[in-house]
């Protein structure tokens, strides 16, 4: 279980997150929706301590941390409990596909090289890249790079995988292959928090939808409720605008 309590974060005077509370059960797939600038990505990055909230607590599994008092060891500990899939993939450019996935296993989790290799190949086969082990990231398409990113996160066996707009930088044609992989691993019962603009995907895959705007959680609930019968006016507006893209008149 992941529990965020009273997370607040400001960049200078601008408050990006205001007293966020969120609970994610084990095995749940949570989708965070919201307009740009609503703080969804920042919230996700706080879980991995890529941003430091001004205040708040986090609980992941049996680990607790108060952001205000976190020392280096706590931060290191927290980061090992989650893995991030980035919008721009952020694969290690100077390492091959296989090395990218092995890196965390060998360096952080102290697997032997053989064991790390075996596990990495297994993960890469799962995302459909078993034939690209020795390629460098620059030789892959965006969709393939993102699938390596997913394999890298998956191999670490974290408590939660965080997806930060995993398909936003992709060609429309390549979005499908990445979403298919995420769908597949969602079925395996891995806890995931996904920030995305893919509404269809959010609807199919998630157990829990969170709608954020201006740094607060406006509404959350089961996907059929949020998409079918949103209660808040702001949610209705957002969903209407984003799901009726075809309704432009020029």
């Amino acid at each position, binding site marked *: 279980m992941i529990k965020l309590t009273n997370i607040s974060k400001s960049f200078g005077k601008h408050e990006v997150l205001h007293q966020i509370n969120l609970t994610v059960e084990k095995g749940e797939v949570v989708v965070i929706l919201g307009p740009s600038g609503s703080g969804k990505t920042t919230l996700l990055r706080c879980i*991995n*301590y*890529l941003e430091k909230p001004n205040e708040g607590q986090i609980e992941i599994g049996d680990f607790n941390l108060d952001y205000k008092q976190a020392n*280096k060891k706590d931060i*290191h500990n927290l*980061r*090992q409990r*989650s*893995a*991030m899939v*980035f919008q*721009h993939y*952020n*694969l*290690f*450019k*100077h*390492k*091959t596909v296989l090395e990218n996935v092995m*890196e*965390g296993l060998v*360096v*952080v*989790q102290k697997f032997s090289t053989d064991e790390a290799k075996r596990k990495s190949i297994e993960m890469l086969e799962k995302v459909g890249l078993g034939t690209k082990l020795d390629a*460098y*990231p*620059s*030789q892959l398409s965006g969709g393939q*790079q993102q699938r390596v990113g997913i394999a*890298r*996160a998956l191999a*670490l066996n974290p408590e939660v995988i965080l997806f930060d707009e995993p398909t936003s930088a992709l060609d429309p044609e390549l979005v499908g292959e990445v979403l298919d992989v995420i769908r597949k691993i969602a079925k395996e019962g891995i806890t995931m928090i996904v920030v995305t603009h893919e509404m269809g995907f959010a609807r199919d895959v998630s157990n829990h939808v969170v709608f954020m705007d201006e740094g607060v959680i406006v509404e959350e609930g089961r996907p059929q409720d949020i998409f079918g019968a949103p209660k808040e006016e702001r949610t209705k507006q957002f969903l209407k605008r984003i799901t009726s893209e075809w309704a432009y008149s020029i």
Partner: protein
Amino acid sequence: MKIDPLFILTALLSLFKALPTTLIITVVSVSMGLIIGSAVALIRIYKVPVLHRIATAYVMFIRGTPMLMHLFLIYFGLPMLIDGISEAWGLPFQSNQIPLIGFVFISFSLTAGAYMSEVIRAGIIAVNRGQIEAAYSVGMTTAQALRRIVLPQALSVCLPNLSNSLIGMLHASTLAFAVSVVDINAQAQIVAANNWKFLESYIAAALLFWGMTVLIERATSRLEKRINNHNRGGVA
């Protein structure tokens, strides 16, 4: 006066005597420069309290004054400092136990460190922020992320400039003669003065320096190809 082409060859042969001196000055100053430079670059990037001000002042002073001046400051200043400390604490060590080339090593390392720190700093800054974030997200510490992810990529960015620094220090090692260390250039001067054939001797020295420079260029371009292997077929 006519040029004596054969004497160029004679001079060249006698210049080889001084080749090890030139090489060792270059190798020591560049490798120490690499260590000092990396430390200074990291201190300045991470704004380590107090140290980063010292580092900035060091780079400013060294780049603001000529290399020959650093050599003289160390050559005349360091013995005073060492003897002063020895006397105050009653140590038996005397500055005249330091070989002349030791002053050259110290001063050239300081010079190289300041210039190379800027090259390395540029290289580190050029590595995308996403790379270190990805390293953090797989659970690495800052030290692991720097050593395994950031620095190797920074190296491939700064390699052309580092080879520039290496060539620069090779040529600048000729200044060592100012404190009576006999490098290739100094040896050329000695050969020239003994035989009254200045142009021939200096042509020989120039050829020797040029040859070494070509070797460095070859080696770095080969290294560059190997290090940049990951960019082949490169889009991203």
